[in-house]
């Protein structure tokens, strides 16, 4: 690319694309080790709650190639997990494994078997006999609703309950009201790359190659667990095959490989199988949500209420921000929201792409459609009518809110005007066709990050930051930002990521990764460029640059910072069988400055596809008799296949948010999934007249 063209924003191909397709971008499990590695296989508990009474590992220890069977009897001393509430980052707390004889959920690791090969370890694991004293367990959200409790706070430090105005009075006197309960199933991240790690020790220093989204959290967690100084832990995570929140924290593979490698004095590799990942990587907890809306006959909202109950585990208090969008999406004089948890004997909920926002908006955007139907109003117009420019709860202006433009532009491009207002109006033979719309909204965050930039005498630049690229294109956008700032061609910029030797970033998560690491890179390159311009002759130079966290940035207090969008979907429903198939989908987004048009579009359509998937397919079937996930593999836990998403497109408004950061860029990784499923559910209603309130919407609910 010519130096003169502005690299930022260009649809530059992934700079690591060639390495990836030729197999030279190693994922955690594929790294070479200094000495031959041994392989560990995790054995999971087969009760949901209880105590291990005996473990007979004699046969396993005698099996060919076996080096070690680690259980709570011989695991190293670790720091305790601590109380459910963590004052700081939950992913930096100690995560003890094999620390005692207790089983807290099905699949919790009870042993690690290490052998010369993966196959030998796996076979030997099947020979370990574990007996349990099982205890009464609680499984089933609906069955235990009476035990719901209010956590002190919800995610990102938000208030558990909020209320403005007098909702009950508004609802009682509402001219048109909706009162509906929605159910969203437990869903799983299922990144393509399974959780995997390789640990090797040199003296008292550990190098852990692991699949993680946040290098500094991984480092802190491992150090805290093993009660060792952080400086003695090096985390290496240059390529990550998807995270979606499932790799915000380190898992059993990381810690158990570290324990075993120290015990054996040689590197140990541990990868989790797809089946195991259903129990050890967190999930989007099941939710039951009640939404009540009241409006005047003109469609103006007078009250909005959103009550959420979600599953939690007894050892943590993870409450998603499921009703948080409801506090800011539509203007109404009264808005109330509540969050409650029900403790069940399962692994706890954890962030999954757009935590809370995704299931919450699935429900809210269905409810808004229900209101539009009752009002006999176009759901696009209803949304536009209730748009606000000041955050109803925070009472501060939005830094930028082009929601209405997204709706109008989307409606125009999609051909929304052709949509039949009433259901069952359009058919092709025995296929019913329907259109649906929904809103997208996601908070914009930024966190503290520092980057290091250097240039060699021959004007080749290198950027170093411990940021990870979890498949989103971080290598590429940082290359573009550095090239533009330094005035170099992108081919002369090398970006190095995913190593705790590099300056700290907040990692990839919460959609803050691009803005935080790109701003730090921008600042480092600005400083470096100044030095380059000052130097008379080509010399080696370096500089660092940083960005502050949003808590230290007044623009994040004085303005409500969000990204917006609108989803439009067309579905076809087979009247005989109830099969729902997406035909086409369009998202129009206002998401700040786009750093790379190609990778950004991929992020958005990826999110939209997951929205389709969670509305139509994804459901972990928790079997209350055992406490396991009955459909725990990818043949039965369905995610959208290619044929399910034939035509999905994302379009960006030309945008730049000067309140967000010097680049004007915002976080986009989670925006696409927010609300996306709502457009599907609403399209299904438009096609069939069947209002689905249980997600995923399966064909039996349509033909019932």
């Amino acid at each position, binding site marked *: 690319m010519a130096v003169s063209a502005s690299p930022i924003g260009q649809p530059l191909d992934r700079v690591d694309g060639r390495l990836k397709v030729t197999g030279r971008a190693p994922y955690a499990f594929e790294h070479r080790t200094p000495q031959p590695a041994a392989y560990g296989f995790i054995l999971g508990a087969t009760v949901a709650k209880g105590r291990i009474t005996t473990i007979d590992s004699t046969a396993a220890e005698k099996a060919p190639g076996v080096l070690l069977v680690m259980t709570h009897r011989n695991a190293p001393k670790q720091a305790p997990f601590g109380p459910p509430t963590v004052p700081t980052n939950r992913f930096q707390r100690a995560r003890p494994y094999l620390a005692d004889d207790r089983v807290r959920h099905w699949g919790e690791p009870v042993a690690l078997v290490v052998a010369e090969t993966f196959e030998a370890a796996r076979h030997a694991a*099947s020979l370990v006999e574990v007996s349990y004293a099982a205890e009464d367990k609680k499984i089933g959200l609906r069955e235990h609703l009476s035990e719901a409790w209010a956590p002190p706070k919800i995610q990102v430090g938000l208030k558990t309950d909020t209320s403005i105005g007098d909702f009950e009075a508004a609802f009682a006197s509402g001219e048109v009201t909706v009162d509906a309960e929605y159910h969203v199933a437990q869903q799983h991240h299922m990144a393509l790359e399974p959780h995997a790690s390789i640990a090797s020790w040199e003296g008292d220093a550990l190098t852990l190659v692991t699949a993680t989204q946040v290098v500094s959290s991984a480092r802190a967690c491992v150090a805290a667990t093993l009660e060792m100084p952080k400086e003695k832990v090096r985390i290496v995570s240059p390529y990550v095959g998807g995270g979606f929140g499932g790799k915000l924290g380190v898992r059993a593979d990381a810690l158990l490989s570290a324990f075993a490698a120290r015990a054996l004095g040689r590197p140990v590799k541990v990868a989790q199988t797809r089946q195991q990942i259903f129990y050890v990587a967190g999930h989007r907890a099941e939710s039951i949500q009640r939404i009540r809306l009241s409006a005047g006959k003109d469609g103006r909202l007078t009250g909005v209420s959103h009550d959420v109950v979600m599953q939690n585990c007894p050892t943590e208090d993870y409450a998603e921000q499921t009703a948080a969008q409801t506090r800011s999406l539509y203007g109404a004089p009264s808005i109330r929201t509540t969050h409650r948890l029900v403790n069940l004997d399962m692994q706890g909920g954890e962030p999954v792409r757009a935590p809370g926002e995704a299931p919450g908006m699935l429900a809210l955007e269905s409810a808004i459609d229900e209101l539009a139907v009752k009002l006999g109003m176009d759901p696009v117009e209803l949304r536009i009518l209730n748009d606000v420019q000041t955050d109803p709860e925070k009472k501060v202006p939005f830094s930028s809110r082009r929601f209405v433009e997204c709706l109008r532009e989307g409606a125009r491009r999609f051909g929304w005007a052709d949509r039949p207002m009433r259901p069952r109006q359009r058919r092709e033979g025995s296929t019913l066709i329907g259109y649906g719309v929904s809103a997208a909204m996601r908070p914009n965050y930024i966190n503290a990050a520092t980057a290091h930039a250097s240039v060699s005498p021959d004007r080749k630049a290198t950027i170093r930051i411990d940021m990870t690229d979890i498949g989103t294109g971080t290598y590429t956008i940082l290359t573009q930002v550095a090239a533009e700032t330094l005035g170099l061609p992108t081919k002369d910029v090398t970006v190095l990521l995913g190593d705790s030797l590099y300056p700290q970033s907040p990692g990839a998560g919460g959609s803050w990764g691009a803005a935080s690491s790109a701003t730090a890179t921008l600042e480092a390159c600005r400083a470096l460029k100044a030095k380059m311009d000052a130097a008379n002759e080509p010399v080696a130079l370096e500089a660092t640059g940083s960005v502050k966290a949003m808590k230290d940035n007044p623009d994040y207090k004085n303005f409500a910072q969000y990204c917006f969008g609108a989803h439009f979907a067309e579905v076809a429903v087979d009247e005989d069988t109830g*099969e729902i198939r997406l035909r086409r989908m369009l998202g129009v987004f206002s998401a700040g400055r786009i750093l790379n048009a190609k990778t950004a579009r991929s992020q958005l359509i990826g999110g939209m596809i997951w929205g389709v998937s969670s509305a139509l397919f994804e459901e972990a079937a928790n079997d209350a008799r055992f406490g396991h996930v009955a459909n725990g593999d990818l043949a039965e836990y369905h995610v959208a296949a290619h044929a399910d998403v034939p035509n999905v497109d994302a379009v960006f408004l030309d945008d730049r948010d000067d309140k967000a950061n010097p680049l004007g860029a915002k976080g986009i990784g989670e925006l696409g999934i927010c609300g996306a499923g709502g457009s599907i559910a609403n399209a299904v209603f438009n096609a069939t007249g069947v209002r689905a309130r249980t997600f995923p919407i399966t064909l039996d609910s349509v033909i019932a």
Partner: protein
Amino acid sequence: MTPFTYERAASPEAAAKAVAERPDAKFVAGGTNLVDLMKLGVEKPTHLVDVSRLKLGGIEETPEGGLKIGAQVKNSDLAADPMVRRRYPLLSRALLAGASGQLRNAASTGGNLLQRTRCPYFSNVAMPCNKRAPGSGCSALGGFNRNLAVLAASEACIATHPSDMAVAMAALDARVHTVTGAGEARTIPLADFYRAPGEDPRRETTLGHGELIAAVTLPPPPKGRQVYRKVRDRASYAFALVSVAAVVDGEGGEVRTSRLALGGVAHKPWRAVEAEKALTGARADGEAFAEAADAAMKDARGYGHNDFKIELAKRTIRRTLADAAGRAA
């Protein structure tokens, strides 16, 4: 995975003998089902006899105008074969509705017939399951049984046979040709090939241990239009909730002959003989198709999560018969 030894068989007879001699030996062809189950500890052969390189490929016309399909013909090759596509489109469509392109490239005709159930409790060795561990109970009763049987299940097991190909073959009156462990050739009509779950759901077919499938033959195609309809939870890469293979000769508005087979509803590809009887001589109209659907599902029974399949099957049968007859449902 239990450690195992491995050999490549030199001939069908040698393969059959090698497996017959060892109770814990198994054939492996594409391995797409067996190897998965070995990793999960469901199948634990200590010796594998690889039959994938035996000269059992090839698709040939038979003297009576049918087709002979070698046991090692890959699912993708069978689906793409011009003779199959022209004369047995039902089979081609059923194959293409199954699994994924990659799996079909590896999956063999013999292996497809013998793939095991997709009951989620069968593939999880921590679960009681009579099919895997006789006498331990059936976890699918009272559990998640969305993809399990509504026809001819037993109290011991409500598993379904997951194959699409076999449903089409059932409708086409296929015959399975084998070599027994003693080296003898045997022919088994597909209708007699699979067993009901009964008391001992471990045994799924009437094959003896070490009996090798060498080929499948199809008689000349039945008269009429052939339609395969698979209903599933997502658009591809999912097993059938219900599938219907129908062939209707309804020229002149009257059903002269018909074939109807169902997948996803029973322990075997289910030939709906009662429905075929009800159709013979009937007017090819919605009423007759509805009667046939009712006849096919007369003895159906749901187990909770799969109750909807009874109605779903009826609807799908009506629609598919109508499509095969070129009529409105």
